[in-house]
Every structure is written in C-alpha cells, then in structure tokens.
C-alpha cells in the first residue's frame, strides 16, 4: 500500500466504497435463497427480519418431495443435460470444423444463415416445433423431445469455427501428407488441441440445458417426465405449497452450478465472452 500515491489511494478507497455495496446487493438474492431454504414456512411468513440461515433444510426438502417428485425430476434433468451436452458439443464442433478448415460450395450461404439466426427470436420456431414434436412425431413427454430440438445453436458453431481457424495449417497438412483421413484428423488432432474451447462450450451448453424452461414446460408436461425447473415452476403460485420447499429446490438447482462456476470460472467466462472477441 505504501507504494501507492495518496491520490491513487483515495481513488482506490472510493472504488471499493462504491463497488462493495453494489456487490452485496447483487449477492443478496442468492443469500436469501439459501436463508429461505433453511427456514420453516412460518418463519418465512413472519414479521421479523431474518438474515441468517436456520436448520430446517431437510424438513423443507421433505416438504418439496411431498409436493412433487423433485428427486425424479433432478434425475431427468441431469441425464438430459449430460446427453444434450455430449451430442451438442460433437455436432457443433463438427460444423465449426467444416466451416473453419474447408472451402466448399455454398459456404457463404451457410455462414450467413447461421449468423442470421442470432437475431431471430426463438418464439418464431416454437409453435411449429411443438406441433411437429408433439403431434407429428408423437414424442411429447420423452427424453428425445427434450434433447433433440434444442441441439441447434448458432453462437457455439461460430465459437468453434473461430477456435479451429486459429490453428496452424502445417499441423493438419503434415497428417494429410501421411495419408491420414479427414475424420481422423478432426478426431485425433484437432479436437484434442481444442480442449479448452470444448470445455468452455460444454459448460455453457450444459448450463443452458439445465436451466431451460419454456420448451420443457411445453413439451414435457406430464408429472413423470418433467425436468427439475418445470417441476419447481408448477409449485410457484399454488396456495397450499411449502415455500421453504420451493426454496430448497431452488438451492438444489443453483448451488451445484455456483460451485461449478467457481471451479471452472475461466472456461465459463471464455464461453460467454466468445461473442465479444472477434
């Protein structure tokens, strides 16, 4: 600190005085989520101000499980998110690889259309997707319905295209001279090199699937086929429901992701920031 000039010191203090309350306000809803999840319902709906956790989480969780099969819903959510992430990473990186490394007929059109969909609201495809999956394919309330339609994403492909196009040509050309097939080059040379980008992509895709609400709400509305956010959402607004239970569910949805976020922050931020760095 002694190396700081007094003007710098003053600026530093002002910075922290401004940023600390803002940070506390930002953390407040998450903190209250945890506090509520540990309070009995009559504690949540009491006139006092309670800002510290109690010991009621297990009871709240039992109440939640009584109101809806949350454990089953978590099971569906985890399985769907894992499957979705694996498939989507594969699909997205294959497409990104083709766009980055080959010259082919219609390339400009493909890239243009993918860029175009960024500005297109999802609402436009929602109704036909629903009609197709529910009525034409008869796939409502199945895992396929949750996993397959959201597989298309545009930002992920552009991110992978960017990642692959930054790799040096010689690397792949050397393999080609040896007569290695293109799909083997992709699988055994390019993908291992792209590991950090794949990690970033996987985290973002997993999170998107884990938190997805509107599509699962519409397509998997039967109690035994609901994802965890949908199951939790059905309780919000009911009159006879345990709010402590809802909060316990919210914590179970959120805290694992927060832990992943802290552990893998670098990849997380790389995935989100991908749009910014051209």
């Amino acid at each position: 600190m002694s190396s700081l000039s007094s003007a710098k010191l003053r600026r530093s203090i002002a910075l922290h005085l401004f940023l600390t309350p803002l940070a506390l306000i930002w953390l407040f809803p998450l903190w209250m989520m945890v506090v509520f999840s540990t309070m009995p319902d009559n504690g949540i709906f009491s006139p006092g101000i309670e800002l510290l956790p109690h010991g009621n989480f297990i009871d709240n969780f039992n109440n939640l499980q009584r109101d809806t099969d949350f454990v089953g819903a978590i099971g569906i959510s985890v399985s769907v998110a894992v499957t979705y992430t694996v498939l989507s990473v594969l699909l997205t990186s294959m497409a990104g690889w083709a766009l980055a490394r080959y010259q082919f007929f219609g390339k400009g059109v493909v890239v243009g259309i993918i860029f175009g969909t960024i500005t297109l609201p999802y609402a436009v495809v929602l109704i036909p997707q629903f009609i197709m999956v529910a009525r034409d394919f008869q796939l409502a309330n199945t895992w396929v319905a949750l996993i397959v339609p959201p597989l298309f994403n545009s930002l992920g492909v552009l991110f992978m295209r960017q990642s692959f196009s930054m790799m040096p040509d010689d690397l792949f050309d050397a393999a080609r001279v040896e007569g290695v097939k293109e799909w083997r080059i992709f699988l055994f040379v390019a993908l291992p090199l792209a590991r950090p980008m794949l990690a970033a992509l996987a985290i973002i895709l997993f999170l998107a699937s884990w938190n997805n609400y509107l599509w699962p709400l519409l397509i998997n509305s039967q109690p035994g086929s609901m994802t965890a956010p949908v199951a939790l959402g059905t309780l919000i607004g009911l009159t006879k429901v345990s709010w402590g239970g809802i909060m316990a569910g919210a914590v179970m949805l959120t805290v694992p992701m927060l832990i992943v976020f802290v552990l893998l922050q670098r990849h997380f931020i790389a995935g989100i920031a991908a749009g910014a760095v051209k």
Partner: protein
Amino acid sequence: MRNRNATAYRFLAPYLLIFSVFWVWPIISSFLISFQATRTVPWRFAPGFNWGRLIGDPAFFNALKNTLLILVIQVPVMIALAMVMAVLLNSPLLKARGLYRFAFFAPVVVGEVAYSAVFRLMFSLDFGIVNKLLNSVGLPKIDWFSNVTPAMALIMIAVTWRWAGYNAIILLAGMQSIPEDVYEAATLDRVSKLKQFFYITLPLLKPVIVFCLVLSIIGTMQLFTEPFLITERGGPGGGTETLGLLLYRQGFRSLNFGYASAVAYTMAALAIAITLVQLWLTREKQ
C-alpha cells in the same frame, strides 16, 4: 484451406439436418400457420383471420406496449450498469477482484425458475424482506404485485439482476482485448481517465456494445418466465403481460396456433427491425 465439398458437407450434415428440421421448416411453417384459422378442424386458409384480429386486439397492443416499455427502460439501464461493472472490475486498483467478479457474475448460472421464486418471496407485500427493509428505514411498503407500476419495476429489476453480469463479462472481455499501449500513450499525454473512457474505450468497444444490445433486445423481446412466474401470468390484470406471455396463452392455453404464430412473427419483425437499425447506425459512424 482446400476445396472439398463432400468432406465439408459430411461434417456439416448432422448439424444442418437438425437446423433444417427444427429451424428452417418451422420458420416457414409458422409464417404459413399465421394465415390459417386453426381452431377449426381441418385448419382453413384464411389470410386476414389472425392478422386482422391482431390489428384490432387490445390484448395484443397491451402486451406490445408492455414489452416495448420494458425494452426501452430495462435494456439501456442494464447495459449502462454492465459497463460500470466492467470498467470497475477492470481497474488495476481493485483488491479481492475474484470476490467482486463472483458477486456480479454468479446470477449468470441461476435458472429463471429459481430466481423468479426468490424474487417473489423477497418482494411479497407483508413478509417480503424488501418491504421489511424499506419499513425499517422509515419508508412505506410497496405493493409490488397489485399495482402496475411497481410490478413492471419489479420485472425490470429482476431481469437486470439476472443479466447485467452476463453483459459485463462480454464487455470486460472486449475491454481486455484493447491493447494496453493505447492507454499508456494517453496517460503520458496527461489525458484523464474519464476522457480515456469516452475517447478510447467507448469507440473501440462499439461493436461489442452493439452485440450486447442485440442479444439483450432479442432476449427482452421474448420475455416470458419472469412475468409468468414472478407477477403470476402477467398480473396485475395484464399489467405486466408481454408478447411472450400472450404467445404462450394463445398458443398453448387456448391452442390457437394461428394467432400465436402471428404474434411470434410480429416479435421477429420487431427484433430484426431494431437490430438492422442498430447495425446501420453503428456502420454510419465508423
């Protein structure tokens, strides 16, 4: 790079297949559905049916007004706040940077349902912590759910909390890609930090800001979960009903796919129009 049509399309095939089935066809299909009367069996081609109704529907104009109001207020406030966060997080004077980053970026991983539930509890009239805290400093309680203005404010507060950090991440990454020596030169020339922000950071960051604006506008245009869960189906009395919610009610409660498709296309047209205007504005100045 080599010209290899077959190889390229083999790699692209699964992606393009999903894209065609679940995006290209639906985009066309929903346009066609919007010209059909869909509550008769079989559906009947009736070009003016849904669009005619849309033009005269007070519920549509109410949802449109609410959506645009949220868009016009919430998006600029959030981007400005995200900019403040990004600039301050980027300051070399900041200690314990990791803690501040966690505070602002954590909402990015929180699902819509989980945070909607928390906001509902926090803002409830008699037992919500927000009103209790207002009371404790001598301010009157606010009835966040029964009056339109506070209900709209609540939706905007919730969305801003959820997405400001997301935009800050993108802006921060953009700032960090600006070369250091530009600022060093400016500092040597005794240009103040504030001037450096307005004359160096902002102009260089313009494409990134536009990217954030476009994503935010498209997101807010489709706002659904927050008015669905926090203010309970767009309450009070349709006061927070958005286009997204109208689409949901028409399409999936009344099973009126034709009308819902017309609403969806209106949203898309608005989103594209706003995006094009923005791209055009930024291109002009460069």
